[in-house]
């Protein structure tokens, strides 16, 4: 009799462990696939930049160094080998693009050009997609970390080697919280 009880208890325990393990695996896969999503969007940005640069080059005679910066930042980002340097290069690229957009505001001829407008819209959308993909990644990482750290799960996760995943940290310039920054107090 006692043997049966022990056997049932072991069975329940095993079943429970399998459930937790499966849950953790699917969460980890979500995290990894969302990391790939960021890469997809970054690739899209790299493909758009040469188009934009060649379109605006002729009309922005005095801003050659701004354009140069964008081009070189893109080249660095494309050729970056490890994730750390890639993240840094992408941040530099984001800032260079931001500067380019700010400068473009001063050129009415650019604003009336259909091609430039379309490219700018595409790039704005891509920037949004990148930040949304990062946001999704961070949300999923937070979810995953909570799951592997809460009480009964942490026994299993450490036993079966579920690693911590790192958050994606934003560049310094983008740290300001957009919601509060937009305050309507006549700024």
């Amino acid at each position, binding site marked *: 009799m006692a043997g049966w009880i022990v056997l049932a208890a072991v069975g329940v325990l095993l079943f429970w462990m399998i459930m937790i393990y499966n849950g953790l695996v699917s969460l980890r896969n*979500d995290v990894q696939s*969302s990391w790939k*999503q960021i890469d997809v*969007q970054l690739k899209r940005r790299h493909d758009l930049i040469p188009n934009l640069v060649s379109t605006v080059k002729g*009309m922005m005679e005095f801003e050659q160094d701004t354009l140069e910066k964008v081009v070189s930042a893109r080249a660095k980002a494309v050729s970056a080998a490890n994730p750390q340097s890639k993240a840094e290069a992408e941040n530099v690229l984001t800032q260079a693009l931001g500067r380019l957009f700010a400068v473009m505001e001063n050129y*009415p*001829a650019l604003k*009336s*050009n*259909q091609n430039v*407008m*379309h490219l700018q*819209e*595409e790039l*704005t*959308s891509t920037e*949004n*997609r990148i930040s*949304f*993909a990062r*946001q*999704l990644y961070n949300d*999923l990482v937070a*979810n995953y970390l909570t799951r592997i750290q809460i009480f009964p799960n942490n026994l299993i996760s450490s036993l079966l080697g579920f690693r911590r995943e790192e958050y994606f940290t934003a560049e310094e310039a983008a740290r300001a*919280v*957009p*919601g*509060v920054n*937009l*305050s*309507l*107090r006549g700024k």
Partner: protein
Amino acid sequence: MPLTFIDIERRKNWRIALFFLLLLLMYFAVTAVLASSFYFGPPSASPRFWIFAAGTALIIAGAHFWSSAVGAVGAVIRTLNAQPPDPRDDVHKTLMNVMQEIHVVTGNRRKIQCRVVPSLSMNALAAADLKGDAVIAITEGLLSRLTRPQLEAVMAHEAHHVLSGDCLEATVAASLFGTFSAIVEKLGHTTRGRAFSSPAFLLAWVMLKLSNLLNLFISREREYRADAAAVRMTRNPIALAETLHLLSRSWRGAGFIGSGFEMLCIVNPLATALDETEGFWADLLSTHPPIRRRMNVLLAMARVSVSELDTKAARREKAKHAGTPSEKAAETKFFAMSPQQQWQGPFTAAELAGLPWLSPLTWITGGDGQAVDRAWKEPPVNAIFAARLAEKEKTLSNFICPSCRQSLVIESYKGTQIYLCRFCAGALVESVKIPRILARNDQPAADRVKALTRTALKENQARFAEHKLKRGHKSSLPLLPCPRCKNPLFRGFYSLAYMIEIDRCGFCGLTWFDRDELEMLQYMVENRLAGETAAAR
């Protein structure tokens, strides 16, 4: 995320089963009442009667449920005449991009279509059905007035309805019971109040009243939840609050978005007092929470108050209006050196653009005649050359101008493509694009257009009155041929309120505007310069 997907699936299946039972019960009651009149004696006595009534009710309810709930998204799209976004249209392109962004932020869990409703009203709605289709529709009016962050917030709000599954139950409810309200509305129109004598109307009316109970099941809470989720996705509570603020002051499509679809919309198209009140009964009976309260919740997240938002909107409005006259006063005159080495002028920038000999290397002096410089160094003059360059890229279309028989040129106007005649300045527009153009009023109308509009309106009113007096009076002007199918274009007013004479082709869906008529129509719609005859009639 508080709920797993399994929880959501289970809950919504339970709700939808409840809808079906409710429908069944309604049909059962109605069949029993109708059938009892054919039975002599007390109907409760015979079990066959009850079996017959239940069977009939089951068949009718099943057919009704199947026909309306399964393809509900298609039905919603057809009813609203929602069009897929046009990738060659700038604003629609933005919409498509935003939809893609929403897919990214939700992790591509579900494919959602997006559609544009050709209407000047301002609303957005989401629908999903049992086949697994999901759609977000937004009206041209709202689309053209939102900034990009605001559009993102609206789409995120609607996407949450779809992803959380509450949209499915609302769509099923709306399409199941919306049928009755459509019947009641239609019969009410055609019979002018005598409808209560007809049994079909009575039946539909009873069903409609019963289906109002449905609002009990559609909770107000889901709008708060979708607002919160939209903020979680876009991290921008102010954009959504601004949108709600804008919606609260606009035509939300009452009368256009058919009754039955109210619960799918971001704000109720009918601005009812019930929606704006709080309390137990309002919570129970209304499907949308008070806009004011929704805004308060959102603004609390951003730590600003409603009055601050109000003053900001007022200031922006004022700046928009103040901007135009000051611009005019600041319009500088230029002197330019002709090829004969003579100074000519003064010209405004527009007059300068008309000079055939003006080139980027022409010597020019601005305003008060201080500095002399090459033309391309003056930004307003340089804009002329940019425009000229852009003009060279224009392509000819296959259409021929109906009045001067020259090829029409494809031109970008307010972000969409129209066909323009270079000789008579008439414009050919696909009829689906007219609401789009009318909704986009970012540039103020020129004074000439304003004056023309007033004159044309007065004249057209007089002509309309005359036309009514002399029945069958024919205009002496010959009808123009349609550029596509060569059939004569039908000539008439855009509407009895906006009396601008246009030529329409009923077969091809094309509309021909003579010179300035498109701008005049736009000015009328913007400023609501309606004809008096239409109101007095």
